[in-house]
Structures are given as structure tokens and as C-alpha cells.
């Protein structure tokens, strides 16, 4: 990392429409009980037809800035992750910037599903030295990228947005945590495992993805913790991309830490792809504060994965 970076605040937005397993059972032919048992998901949210990816991202960004007590004008750079934006270009970053009132502040799209918010946080941690305050936003409308003819994927996904403000300085209001270290990885040999073609619907080779995730994510976390002399059992909480509760359990087992150390909201929101990590972080930080090491980790299409270690701000 190129200098100090602080997590100032998180934010999130979930659309109002609830979609429970009974509704999906009608659409996909699976039973509600089967959906619950195989995914750990009880319900998810879907965006309204009039809402765009940028709309969801804006709501999360505003929530984040309000929690940070930072005016939007103080943001030096926006990084917007989404794998489900409506068009090839321009992406939602520019739209979001305009709606926040910017006319020249750089706003860059990260067209990365699943691990997008982690990659945004990692880039922000290095870019705050130049841009001061970096607003990381991740928003997805996955409900428009699935098809009921592929029930294996249709039952998993929901819509939502998360945001995070990362700054060079800890700020007048107490920062949430200090980013200590991070590591990102890509293995393009499995790029075809999880794809979304232009105008198409999501295609996932589930077995292949889970085999890679179950191996790569624990290793990335373990390597990062070892490099920083942090024992896995001393980590306060693991804030993860919410892909599947069973995968979280598997990662916990691999790291030999109790499963309840892994925050999970997948039962309520499903897999919101890149947004899920920041939604989880926002929800967790609503009722807790950082008192020990915190690990953020994600895995997804690419394959892209990585981990980020945050620690309490030194008093």
C-alpha cells in the first residue's frame, strides 16, 4: 500500500420489493423448501422497473456520505463497481457523479461482478494518497440478468447497492478502521465459469465456481493474515461477498474459526453480486464497532478474488 487509508463510513440501499421463495417456486418449479435448504436464502429484493443501477448506487452513496458527515463536494474520486449495468458505456459512474453534483471529478467504472466492491476498496486504499476521499460504490440489478429457465442461478440473486468512503485522513468524525493491508488475485483460466454476455443472462458453472472459491478464498485470507501476523481466531469479524451461506461455512471451517464470526445477511437479501460485501459491511457496522482485526474478502467472475485487512484506528 502507498500510504495511510481509513474506512470512514459504509452505506447501503435495498429496493422495496420483497421476493420470497414461494414466489420463486412458482416461477422456477423448485419448492420453497428446496430453495431455502440449498441456498440459505429466504427472500431477496428486486428493483422497481423504473430504477437503474445508478439509482441504486446513488441511494447507497448518499447514505454513506451522510454517515461519514462528509459533503459530496469533498469526494475526490468515485469508483463504481457493477456487473449488471444497463449499457456498455458510459457506465453508471458518470451518471452517479452528475447526480451528486460533480462536473469534473473523476468517476470510473469497474465492470466487475461479485468481487467488484473489494477491488474498488483495494484500489481506493492506494488512490487516496492522490485523491483524498474516494467513494466506492457497488450496485447491481441482477434480477434483470437471470432467467427462470435456469433455476440454479435464478434462485440466488437479488438487487441492491452498497457504498464505502475511504480517505487519506481519519477525518473529524471517528473513522471506522484503518486499512492495514490487502491482496488481489485473478485467474483467467476459469473465466468461462461465470459469465454475462452483452444483452444476455448470467451463465454459471456452479460446481466449478464453488470448487475454486472454496480453495482460493481461504488461502487468500490465510496468506494475508500470516503476512500481517494476525491469527485467524483473533479476527473480530469476516465481512464477505454474500454468495452462499454454505460457502461461508466452508471457508470458516477451512480457517478453523467459528462460523458465527462470518457476518451473513444472505437469508434476507440473497446474492447481490458486487454490492453484497458493502451491504454486509454497512449492516454489520450499524450495530458494532471495530475493536479488532476485520477481514473483507470476495470472490467472483474472472475469476477475481482477494482479501483486505482492516484494524482499529490507533488512538
Amino acid at each position, binding site marked *: 500500500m502507498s500510504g495511510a487509508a481509513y474506512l470512514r463510513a459504509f452505506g447501503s440501499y435495498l429496493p422495496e420489493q420483497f421476493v420470497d421463495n414461494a414466489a420463486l417456486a412458482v416461477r422456477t418449479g423448485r419448492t420453497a423448501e428446496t430453495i431455502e435448504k440449498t441456498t440459505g436464502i429466504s427472500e431477496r429484493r428486486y428493483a422497481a422497473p423504473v430504477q437503474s443501477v445508478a439509482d441504486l448506487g446513488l441511494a447507497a452513496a448518499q447514505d454513506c456520505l451522510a454517515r461519514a458527515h462528509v459533503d459530496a463536494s469533498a469526494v475526490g474520486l468515485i469508483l463504481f463497481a457493477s456487473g449488471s449495468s444497463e449499457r456498455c458505456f458510459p457506465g453508471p459512474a458518470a451518471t452517479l457523479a452528475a447526480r451528486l453534483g460533480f462536473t469534473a471529478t473523476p468517476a470510473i467504472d469497474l465492470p466487475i461482478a461479485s468481487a467488484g466492491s473489494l477491488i474498488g476498496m483495494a484500489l481506493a486504499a492506494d488512490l487516496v494518497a492522490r485523491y483524498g476521499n474516494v467513494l466506492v460504490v457497488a450496485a447491481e440489478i441482477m434480477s434483470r440478468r437471470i432467467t427462470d429457465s435456469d433455476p440454479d442461478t435464478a434462485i440466488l440473486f437479488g438487487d441492491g447497492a452498497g457504498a464505502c468512503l475511504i480517505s487519506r485522513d481519519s477525518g473529524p468524525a471517528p473513522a471506522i478502521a484503518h486499512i492495514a493491508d490487502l491482496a488481489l488475485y485473478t*485467474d483467467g*483460466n476459469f473465466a468461462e465459469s461465470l459469465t454475462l454476455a452483452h444483452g444476455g443472462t448470467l451463465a454459471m*458453472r*456452479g*460446481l*466449478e465456481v*464453488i*470448487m*475454486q472459491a*472454496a*480453495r*482460493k478464498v481461504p488461502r487468500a485470507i490465510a496468506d494475508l493474515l500470516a503476512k500481517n501476523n494476525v491469527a485467524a481466531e483473533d479476527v473480530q469479524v469476516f465481512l464477505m461477498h454474500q454468495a452462499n451461506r*454454505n*460457502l461461508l461455512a*466452508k471457508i470458516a471451517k477451512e480457517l478453523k474459526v467459528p462460523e458465527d464470526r462470518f457476518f451473513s445477511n444472505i437469508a434476507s437479501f440473497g446474492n447481490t453480486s458486487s454490492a453484497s460485501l458493502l451491504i454486509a459491511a454497512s449492516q454489520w457496522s450499524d450495530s458494532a464497532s471495530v475493536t479488532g482485526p476485520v477481514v473483507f474478502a470476495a470472490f467472483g467472475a474472472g475469476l477475481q478474488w482477494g482479501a483486505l485487512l482492516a484494524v482499529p484506528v490507533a488512538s
Partner: protein
Amino acid sequence: MSKQPGILKVIHSVADITHDPAEDESLFATGTLDSFTLPDLVNGLEQEFAVTIPDSDLVPERFDTRRKIEQYLDTLVQ
């Protein structure tokens, strides 16, 4: 020497079955293995046969039947 006894031992340790699957029976199609037991199978095979299965070999087709698993393991020890 056949690796089938060890393979069966690992399958039984991760799958909720009481019978021995036939050598060419698809472990996925029959539901013996799924996305959440497959990674455990791989870990179990590594321990049982003292081998390291590289990420690049983590392709479900290699582990679909007992015979395919043995054929794959044979390539690791050669």
C-alpha cells in the same frame, strides 16, 4: 493397487449415502455429491492419498465417477 477402497472411504465421509456407488455411476447426477460436498471430497482425497491437487485441476468432470477419480489420481502419482 486399486485406489477404490480409499476413494469409497472419502466418498462416504462427505456424502450422505449408505450404499457404495458403482464405479461408473455419476456422483453428481445421482446427488451423491453436490456443490458443497465436492470441495470436501477434494480435500479428503488429498489427505487420503497424500497428494496435492492443484487449482488448475479442480474441474468437476474429473470427480464425477469413482473410475474417473482413480484415473485422475493415477496421473498425480506418475
